[in-house]
């Protein structure tokens, strides 16, 4: 469904992403892990069309993504790390606006809004201003705004930053529901336990390169010597080192 092929991005002399390749299949959750500055967000931005790669391709259903108005962008839903919402507007007004960007008709948009709000448990707060929402509610609305056009692939850039365990759990439930519906999810985070709970496969990047790509079980081969049944965190540290990155 989504294939990332040899993506490369540079900023001057700095190589942010170097020859990154991986894929996301329908109904699959791929965890994208990496230390700060490893190139995770740049990779996600290239997939979403926010950043133009120097070389490489983003393929959707085998076809390269081409340009800002490529209809294949409708198959992608981006959940930004920031709470990309208008606090001054109601949840409904936010969703109406973001849905309209995908050329949804009025009826289809209203149905999509109802469905999305229902999924994230905010149907009863549709008419309230976002500024009155808690952090967890905003995170859920941030997710709902990315689902309106019913994308096949969801790009989730640290979607649980700053939320309490209840909201995080609710978001996980939402994501598992989406996975069950056959959506492919690319999930970036610093929380290893989230990947352990959600991901079918894990791609670990460091210094812009893929250093490991496998299932959770398959990653055990990168575990420190003698550490049978090592945690994902210990494998991650074994692959990326313990040097502070920022």
């Amino acid at each position: 469904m989504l294939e990332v092929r040899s993506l490369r991005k540079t900023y001057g002399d700095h190589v942010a992403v170097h020859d990154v390749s991986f894929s996301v299949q329908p109904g699959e959750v791929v965890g994208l892990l990496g230390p700060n500055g490893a190139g995770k967000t740049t990779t996600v931005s290239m997939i979403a069309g926010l950043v133009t790669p120097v070389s490489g391709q983003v393929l959707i259903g085998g076809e390269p993504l081409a340009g800002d108005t490529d209809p294949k962008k409708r198959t992608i839903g981006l959940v930004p790390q920031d709470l990309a919402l208008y606090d001054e507007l109601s949840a409904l007004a936010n969703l109406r606006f973001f849905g309209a960007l995908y050329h949804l008709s009025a009826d289809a948009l209203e149905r999509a809004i109802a469905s999305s709000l229902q999924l994230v448990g905010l149907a009863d707060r549709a008419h309230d201003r976002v500024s009155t929402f808690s952090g967890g509610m905003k995170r859920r609305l941030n997710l709902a705004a990315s689902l309106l056009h019913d994308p096949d692939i969801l790009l989730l850039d640290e979607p649980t930053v700053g939320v309490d365990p209840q909201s995080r759990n609710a978001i996980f439930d939402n994501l598992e529901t989406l996975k069950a519906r056959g959506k492919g999810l690319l999930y970036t985070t610093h929380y290893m336990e989230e990947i352990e709970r959600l991901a079918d496969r894990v791609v670990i990047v460091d210094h812009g390169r893929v250093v490991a790509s496998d299932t959770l079980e398959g990653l055990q081969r990168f575990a420190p010597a003698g550490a049978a049944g090592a945690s994902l965190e210990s494998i991650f540290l074994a692959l990326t080192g313990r040097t502070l990155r920022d």
Partner: protein
Amino acid sequence: MRPILAMVRKDLQLFLTDRRAVIMSLVAPIAIASFFGSIFSGNSNADRARIPVAIVDQDGSAISRGILDRVRGDKWVSVSTPTADEARAAVQKGALTVAVIIPGGFGDAAGRAFFSGANRPTLTMWYDPSHSTELGLVRGVMTQYVMESVSAEMFTGEQGRKVIDDTLASIDSMRLSGQQQALLRDLLQSARSFYSQATPAPADGATSTTPRRGLSMPYSVSEEAVTSGRNAAYNGYAHSFAGMGIQFLLFASIDLGVGILLERQRGLWKRLRSAPVSRVSLLIGKATSGSIIALMTLVVSFAFAMLVFGVRIHGSLAGFGLVAFATAVMAATFGLLIAALGKTPGGTRGIAILAVLMMVMLGGAWIPSFIFPAWLQQLTVVIPARWAVDGFDAMTWRGLGLQAALVPTAVMLAFAVLFGGLAVARFRWEEA
């Protein structure tokens, strides 16, 4: 089209959501334009503030008293008679605009100089340099009344008789040819005969209360302000509402530009860019909402000016609409340019405010551009605000037709194309 309409609707919702900001964006231009309009509008003479002038009469002659009487009756000035020291101190403090010092011996010397042109006495004027334009008016007033007073005294007063007698007595010693001496003697004797016939001496103890007539202005003035028509008076509020309207439109364009930067900072632009919407559509959506908000501000401001201050569109209504439309589009694209060139919202706002203030100042929105030096007046043709002001003036108080709106409209639309093109070229599209 649907995404563009959605962006416009969303931006209008955001604008109208903040009621305090809406009120301020409408009230502020109205308040400031009303203030400027009250200053620059053509008040009636009855309402006009008189120029405070002091006359220090150190002479005490009939001529100096005549000057004082005449100046007191003038409609342009209010006269006081302090001492010289008090007058100088008052001018220094700004309480007086001009102090006129009539020195001792002025009347006698002025009378003699009236015929001979030699040894003219000096009339000293101390003035407040911050009111130098009013000095010219006071100078004109004094010229008129000194001439009237001196000539009246010379032709009809005692001082004049004495001067003529003295001059007749000294003709033989003057450096004149015999023929010239004879002619001057005839002239002065005729003047002496005129005194005795035209101005009988008042009865004992009686004094004349009306200034005697001397030379007078040999013409009167008929003034007509050339506006849209004979029945349409100049309304200074039309200009001030145009100027302040444009200023606040440009301030609104700063909000538009900074708003885009804030959207980027909050990650909203990532969501916009991830949708299958072209870059031009995104900018058109922003420019359209900015133009609508700008037009709303203009319409409300001018509606207030019409209702409260009697401003009228004496020219072409369609032309007014064209100028308003072009101004709004120009302001909106200027906002896009701000967003394209700016980096942080805070830093951008400061620089943009400075740029807008320069633009409206040079565009003649605050003070008429004819006050500027000639080179600066020519330079202002590259300031879009000037074309907006000229366009609105043409359609309101000047009462010109549609044709007069076409050039300002075309120029502002050209500016809009320039600003929009630069914005598209310089906009930071990548959202890492």
